């Protein structure tokens, strides 16, 4: 009987990764990361993550959690399973957002204070390159073919396309005010850039011979919400390239955009000051961080409905889900 239980629990344990993933949420104000289990949506842990944790990412093997501890001017690396602080990466001052190469190395991070994008070797823990960009670099995206890393600069209002070969800027595309976030479609054909103060998503066609081209701008409109509070920030696009989800900050909604028509089809009411988004593997669920209501909302992606909210730490900012 004991053996049977042992086998059963072993089977359960080993089966767990296929059904449940850990969701890591950075809490900007409480200086912690909250860990949520995706099968039960229960909080399993909250651990100290350094001062003002914001941008958060995970290594492709799911072993290491990378967190921009903005007020510590460093990227902290944690064991994603034991939550033990392992080491830090040099990042330059006030790191906010980064992208990881799909192999886990290097890491590209924006440094708002120095107008630089820094390329960090995650194994040697050294700086490989520093690329001067526009004023207040923020959003970071990596093209699916890994040829370009894109940075958006909030005061210069541009998307800078940086070659990952020679770390030189090859193209600049002017977008609306305060571009916050950039995201490629999975096929790499479109780059979406959200402009927080401009209140628009710039759609950039990346397949043109002559270089990336701004082809459309998507705006928002919600009855009863002042237009100025419709401030797009975090984005995720489904891998079938059909739906773009956009967090609308103080409008407390996630917009659902039909990618083919570049039209908003729905607004999903979530928590307050919705900031960043992440899919669970397989894109069954979308998690939103809600900074002013101290919770995350779980959205059923197919149904395009909010199904649950989970309390986390104070002022949740970023979110990442462990890979399968």
């Amino acid at each position, binding site marked *: 009987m004991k053996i049977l239980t042992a086998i059963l629990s072993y089977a359960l344990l080993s089966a767990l990764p296929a059904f449940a993933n850990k969701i890591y949420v950075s809490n900007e104000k409480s200086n912690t990361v909250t860990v949520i289990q995706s099968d039960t949506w229960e909080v399993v842990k909250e651990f100290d993550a350094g001062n003002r944790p914001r941008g958060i990412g995970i290594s492709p093997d799911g072993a290491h959690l990378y967190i921009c501890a903005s007020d510590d001017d460093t990227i902290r690396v944690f064991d994603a399973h034991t939550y033990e602080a392992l080491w830090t990466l040099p990042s330059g001052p*006030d790191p906010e957002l980064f992208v990881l190469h799909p192999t886990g190395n290097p890491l590209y991070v924006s440094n*708002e*204070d120095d*107008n630089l994008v820094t390329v960090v070797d995650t194994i040697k823990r050294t700086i490989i390159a520093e690329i001067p960009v*526009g*004023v*207040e670099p923020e959003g970071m995206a990596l093209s699916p073919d890994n040829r370009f890393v894109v940075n958006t600069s*909030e*005061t*210069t*209002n*541009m998307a*800078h396309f940086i070659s990952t070969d020679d770390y030189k*800027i090859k193209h*600049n595309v*002017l977008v*609306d*005010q*305060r571009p916050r976030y950039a995201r490629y479609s999975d096929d790499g054909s479109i780059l979406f850039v959200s402009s*927080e*103060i*401009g*209140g628009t998503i710039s759609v950039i066609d990346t397949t043109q011979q002559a270089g990336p081209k701004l082809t459309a701008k998507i705006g928002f409109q919600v009855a009863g919400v*002042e*237009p*100025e*509070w419709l401030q797009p920030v975090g984005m995720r696009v489904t891998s079938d390239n059909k739906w773009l989800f956009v967090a609308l900050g103080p409008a407390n909604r996630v917009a659902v955009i039909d990618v083919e028509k570049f039209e908003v089809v729905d607004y999903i009411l979530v928590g307050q000051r919705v900031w960043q988004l992440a899919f669970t593997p397989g894109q069954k669920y979308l998690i939103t961080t809600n900074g002013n209501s101290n919770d995350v909302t779980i959205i059923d992606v197919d149904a395009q409905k909010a199904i649950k909210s989970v309390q986390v730490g104070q002022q949740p900012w970023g979110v990442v889900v462990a890979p399968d």
Partner: protein
Amino acid sequence: MKLAIFVVSVLFLYNPVSAIAMEIKIGVLRIDYPALLPISRFDLKPDDLGFAGGVLANKDNQTTGAFLGIEFSVTYVTTSPEEVIIAFDTLLADKIDLIVLMAESDDLLKLADRVGDAALVVNAIARDTSLRDDQCRANVIHIAPSQAMIADAVTQFAMWKRWKRWFLIHGSNPKDHELRDAYRRSAKKFGARIVEEREFEDIGGSRRTDTGHVLVQRQIPVFTQNAKDHDVVIAADASNVFGLYLPFHTWNPRPVLGSGGLRPVTFHPSHEAWGATQYQRRFEKLSGRYLQEADYEVWLALRVIGEAVIRINSSSPEKLRDYILSDAFELAAFKGRKVTFRSWNGQMRQPVILTDSKITISVSPQEGYLHRRSALDTLGLDEPETACTEFKKRGDL
């Protein structure tokens, strides 16, 4: 090998990123008026007041310009009121036709009328409501909020708190009376009641003396004694003579708003929301001091010009003016929402920060104050209220 090098350098020269296609020359002219030292040492005027904000803005403009082949340069000039015409004409002679003025309203009007449509004049700091009203000029746009906007920002907060009964204390100089009138108008607009009004006379003399607080602690309670029941004290002290003395010293324990206590400002060095921390750090790194309102206002003025140049790729003052006044223009200004311009009087729409001088306490417009165009238009003169017709004549509406 030589040929190869030659080809490479030609390519580099013709690289659109590095080629300079357009040069934009901007002037910032500051008139230094004789003035007494301020009540607080924190309000001392540094030599680079305003200009430091300009230097930061020009760096911002240049960074973007470098990617687009636009070069920005700024000439900074200080002058006395007596020599302002010479200083202004020198800028014009240098073919500078985008001019930011840090001047009082009389001088501003004199210069704006002197140049007419040959230049775009940007009013960085003058707050007189009349400049946005019957004294408006079609070639002048205003960065600084009007006294009417400032008063409305305070009133909305007071009303949100339900502090409806006001004890209004104003100074004795003409500009104090203008500010008093702005508060009277604002009280009427939003339904506050002025139950008591007193004038604090400016008798001159220095504002800071050793142990001056001892005298203040005796004078202010007596001055504010026997006022009718009020919820709040509103200080209208544009001359900076007494406003800062009021908090804690009033006869009745009441909050003070306006020129002391909770103060309406365009920006404050403690303001951190909406990405402002990075802005503050950039300013402090460059200037070695904390930012003052005039620095933010000049920064905004140059960013407005820079943004317009970048978007329409033109250096013509008239085209830039038209674009700035159009619906297409918008700029992020670290105050949570875009700043734009009122096409009826050239006034920039912007939120007003309310500070206790340590932190941001609130930002107006307050929740619930709605407007068909923009909530920002609940602050200051709205289209039907202004006597300004210069813009209408030019077809800006």
